């Protein structure tokens, strides 16, 4: 039996949500004619919540006849509100179930577990296309997390479907969307 090669690929999407704020009153005043003339302008910056996910890498499982151990990838999540929501969507998902697909019509199911820290922390199991509850632990100051990571994604291959799957190369594209709560 040949060893299957499984290559889940991750595609990150950061959501920058720009809301439509309330109308801002016009307050500029014009100067009058005189020996000096003074006018005023209001300068306003409506800062919307901002998030970013970065530091993603493809996850490559080594070829194996038996189910490989889960693999994790640390990532950087910036969110200036502090909390964030995450949604993972698999290109080959069947409903809420993530699946790897070979060149034909064979699948291996897998799970996606989101941890709110690069190491340790708490976790939540994600369903494809379903937005999580609020997650804490994002970097609130640095969009690049200061070169560190604030979360990690864990991919867990399903033992039953892995064992049953014919040998081959399986892959999926996982799209990750983070958004302000």
């Amino acid at each position, binding site marked *: 039996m040949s060893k299957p090669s499984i290559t889940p690929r991750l595609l990150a999407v950061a959501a920058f949500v720009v809301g439509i704020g309330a109308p801002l009153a016009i307050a500029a005043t014009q100067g009058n004619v005189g020996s*000096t003339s003074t006018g005023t302008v209001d300068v306003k*910056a409506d800062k*919307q919540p901002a998030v970013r996910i970065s530091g993603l890498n493809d996850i490559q499982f080594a070829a194996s006849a038996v189910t490989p151990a889960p693999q994790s990838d640390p990532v950087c999540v910036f969110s200036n509100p502090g909390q964030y929501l995450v949604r993972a969507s698999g290109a080959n998902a069947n409903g809420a179930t993530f699946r790897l697909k070979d060149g034909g019509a064979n699948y291996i199911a897998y799970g996606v577990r989101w941890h709110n820290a690069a190491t340790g922390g708490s976790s939540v199991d994600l369903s494809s296309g379903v937005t999580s509850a609020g997650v804490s632990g994002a970097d609130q100051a640095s969009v690049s997390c200061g070169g560190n990571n604030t979360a990690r994604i864990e991919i867990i291959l399903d033992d039953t479907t892995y064992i049953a799957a014919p040998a081959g190369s399986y892959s999926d594209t996982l799209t990750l969307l983070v958004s302000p709560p």
Partner: protein
Amino acid sequence: MRRASIMWGLSALVALAPVACLVTLMVSSQAAGQGLEQGLAKSISIVKVAQVRLSGLRDFIFQGAGEAPAPQEAVVCVHSTDAGRYVITATSHHGGSGSFSLRAGQAGPIDYEVTWYDRAIGGQALALRSGLASPSLSGADRDDPTCKGTGTARLRIALNEGDFMQAAPALYADTLILTVAPP
């Protein structure tokens, strides 16, 4: 400045009394000691200072979530009868020494830069510092306080990229006071 000097006879001065009472009183006082019959000619002077006007101002509203929004410019009208010359002073309500800042209550600051151009298009860029008058600039409309409906200068506001990115979500604001004066 333009200096106007008009020489009149006393009789003509009396005729102008309703519109130049201060000058008339001065002349009468001097005339009392010297005799009206001498018919002295007196000098009436007025210093007409240059007049200026700043108009065409509009508010600057930025919105964004991640990176700082692009800088914005506004074309404004500067009128100056001093051969089109003027100085500009921009003062930030929330800024510190020389700086321009937006605040949202205790949040912030988001600093911003103020650049003045002495033409509506092109021109010389001058980075302003809060509360400090610019060097003498030219290009103002010499005749029309409304610049004939066009602009003669422009104002550019650029938010500090780092400050904006790190700022907590909120509405940050400042009032920028702009004063033009003859050089």
